[in-house]
């Protein structure tokens, strides 16, 4: 849904996206302990596998991005996790491209990181699993539209010919936002009930 392929954007947009993505990934990696890497990697593999399922919404079907959920669970680790997943998708399945890696990473990971940063504390402190799920649903919907907005922005910056499409692009993200909100709410409610410590981004190794 948010994979811009090679050949659409202009060089300044590609370079700008790569610079922002490199900053995000760099900042995240500096805060992540060496021993937390397996945790981030395995969770990234889960999100990758989950994004391959096609979920029916109305007459269409969508593949989830789960950026909001990743932001809540991984914290800033969402940047390297998304980057790695996008490299694999480009190489294994041909979704997206390598020159657009930076732009696509920012479009997906930045809203996710913000959601985790802003809503994460409220979700962890929520009085009931249902409430935690409701907050997460709002975050997931915001995240999806923010990604849509960033994709529109990337297209608009690339060429004025794309302006009409960029204007109506957000509408096409409505089915995805519905599915993201519903699934994310359930996952967060489930984790709050079953394993609340899973919602804590652990950038350092688990305590001995």
């Amino acid at each position, binding site marked *: 849904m948010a994979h811009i392929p090679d*050949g659409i954007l202009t060089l300044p947009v*590609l370079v700008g996206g790569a610079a922002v993505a490199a900053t995000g990934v760099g900042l995240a990696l500096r805060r992540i302990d*060496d*021993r937390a*890497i397996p945790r981030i990697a*395995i969770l990234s593999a889960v999100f990758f596998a989950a994004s391959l399922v096609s979920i029916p919404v109305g007459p269409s079907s969508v593949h989830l991005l789960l950026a909001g959920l990743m932001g809540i669970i991984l914290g800033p680790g969402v940047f390297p996790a998304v980057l790695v997943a996008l490299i694999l998708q480009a*190489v294994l399945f*041909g979704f997206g491209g390598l020159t657009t890696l930076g732009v696509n990473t920012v479009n997906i990971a930045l809203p996710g990181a913000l959601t985790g940063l802003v809503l994460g504390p409220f979700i962890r402190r929520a009085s009931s699993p249902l409430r935690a799920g409701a907050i997460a649903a709002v975050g997931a919907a915001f995240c999806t539209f923010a990604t849509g907005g960033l994709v529109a922005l990337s297209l608009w910056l690339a060429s004025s010919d794309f302006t009409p499409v960029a204007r109506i692009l957000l509408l096409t993200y409505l089915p995805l936002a519905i599915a993201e909100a519903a699934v994310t709410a359930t996952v967060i409610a489930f*984790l709050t009930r*079953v394993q609340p410590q899973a919602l804590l981004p652990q950038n350092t190794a688990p305590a001995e």
Partner: protein
Amino acid sequence: MTIPADLRLRIGLALALPALLTTVHGFAPAFTALVAMLLLHVGSRQPFPWKRLLHLEGFLLLLFVTLPFTMPGTPLLTLGPLTASIEGAWRAATLAAKVSASVLLLAHLFAATDPLHLGNALRALHVPEPLVRLFVTVTRQLGVVRAEFARLQDAMRARAFHPRSNRHTWRSYGNLMGMLLVRALERADRVEEAMRLRGYSGRFPRTALMAPTVADWAVTAALVGATLLLLLWDKA
């Protein structure tokens, strides 16, 4: 051989050629690039990547369909109040050719590549070590996680679950993913402990790669040169 055997050079090409191609404006050069990529594929013995080529993101479809109608220019056909312009149609065709050529190039460069080898090549290209370690671990664990996912989905299907557009479906998928996350976290702890038991100190051992051969450099230079010629033709 039409592509270099060395993975580092292939990664370089996968970045450089689409980056050059993205600046092409004319239809003829873009179409030539597409034909060249098709010829590359015919020359190789790999199966043709139809699925990759026909996979279109929703917004791309929107872009290709609306561009002829939103760009001003000489009218081509009229549908009620809408008029499609020749300029818009050419623009859409050029973009489609560039996107398709890039997709074919990536498919050709990495068709038979083991992602683990890719990790080694990335490290040799001075990609930060933790990032490469993350990439390699995701690649290794992906098979395990997908198998677990498939098992859980089989279990749902055995209980007559059929995905529809309703809250029950979304909630079922949410519970499925939550369960998968819980198991993944436990697995992560086990993997981390197992790695430490085997003396893992935060670095994977890596083997130095051999320098690319002269033939590899020659093929790479030829491909970059051909793309630069295309660019010159486009600007002329």
